């Protein structure tokens, strides 16, 4: 359990997000929009870089007959090398999923968390935006239950008092 070691993934829904990309394609029929090419997502001092970002939205259709916007983003899927950094912490992985409804953010593939000299590796980082709790999991290749989180934590250098824990984390397995 790596509690709030990496709350940097926090993305709140009522602060504007700025997305830059080379291209944006919107498919209103199935309510998706795909940003591709040097995608950079910024909110406050959190930023995410990825190759492609697929946005799933809900709310009324193309022409909102009179109703106000009501277009809500329900899910974000970043693929193709994801790099997130926030307040000095960086996290990289192969993909990331932001589930706005469940407020869960999952960073997957070979996940590397780093802050200063501290580096943690795993196969999946799950952050609960509501509770701020994050869990780094490393599923063993054979998938025999909990894997070992490889990490190098240098006491004190994590800034806040960080209780160092290493070893089997049998809370393996992914949440979704």
């Amino acid at each position, binding site marked *: 359990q790596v509690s709030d070691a990496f709350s940097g993934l926090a*993305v*709140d*829904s*009522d*602060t*504007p*997000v*700025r*997305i*830059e*990309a*080379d*291209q*944006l*394609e*919107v*498919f*209103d*029929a199935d*309510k998706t*929009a795909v*940003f591709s090419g040097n995608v950079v997502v910024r909110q406050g001092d959190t930023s995410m870089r990825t190759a492609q970002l697929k*946005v799933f*939205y809900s*709310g009324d*259709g*193309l*022409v*909102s*007959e*009179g109703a*106000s*916007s*009501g*277009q*809500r*983003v329900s899910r974000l899927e970043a693929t193709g090398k994801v790099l997130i950094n926030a307040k000095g912490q960086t996290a990289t992985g192969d993909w990331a999923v932001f589930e*706005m409804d469940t407020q869960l953010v999952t960073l997957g593939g070979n996940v590397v968390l780093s802050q200063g000299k501290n580096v943690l590796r795993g196969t999946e980082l799950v952050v609960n935006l509501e509770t701020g709790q994050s869990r780094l999991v490393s599923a063993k290749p054979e998938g025999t239950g909990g894997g070992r989180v490889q990490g190098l934590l240098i006491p004190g250098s994590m800034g806040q008092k960080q209780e160092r824990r290493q070893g089997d984390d049998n809370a393996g397995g992914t949440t979704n």
Partner: protein
Amino acid sequence: MHVDTGAFDGLKAVPAWQQPRRQPRSWHDARRHSRAVRVLRIGLPALALLTVAWLIVSARAFPPTIGNVDLGEVGLDGTTLTMENPALSGYNENGTSYEVTAARALQDVTNPRIVTLQLIDGTMTKPDGTKVRVTAADGVYDSEEQTLKLSNDIVVRADDGSRAFLRSADVDMKAGSIVSTEPIRAETPGGRIRADTMDIAERGAHMLFKGKVVVELRLDGGSLDDRTARKPQENPADVE
């Protein structure tokens, strides 16, 4: 037969702002007559109103029922028919009504399919009463191809406050598509977008923006302005 449209081209090349300014027309006394001219429909697309589907031809069914046309004061100069303050209105199958006026319309009687419009002002009222208004300095309407090429100061306004600014827009009314090869910028209550080019097809169902795409929105679809102070516009490149 070779048609000399020299007179015609000369007229078209004169930029709108050198045109004698008409006295401001109050919108309400627009005379309601019609001819088959398409009005451009704006769909307000998705992703927190990420974009405004500008200038999409409204009718599901085409051609729209012809309402009234008023050719205004008509003059014939050589082979060029000039209509001052033409106005037209009509409605289409799904009850969307539209009114379009222009400061001037020019048509070469030997090539009547092309109509050049200056200072276009078109409003479309959807069945639910919401309105979308499009103004543009110049336009060329091809009645055979059913295309309308708009240029210079195109501004689209929807009554929910959404606005889009384009420098050029090629509207294909049959296909229901709008293509702009110049930078576009749009603001809706829920979001802002900027891009170098835009291609909206299938009446707004599919949109493609390319080149330095910047989108600002709130994931909960709320308005950008509620909580955070509006960022100053970086490059108010287009006319406000």
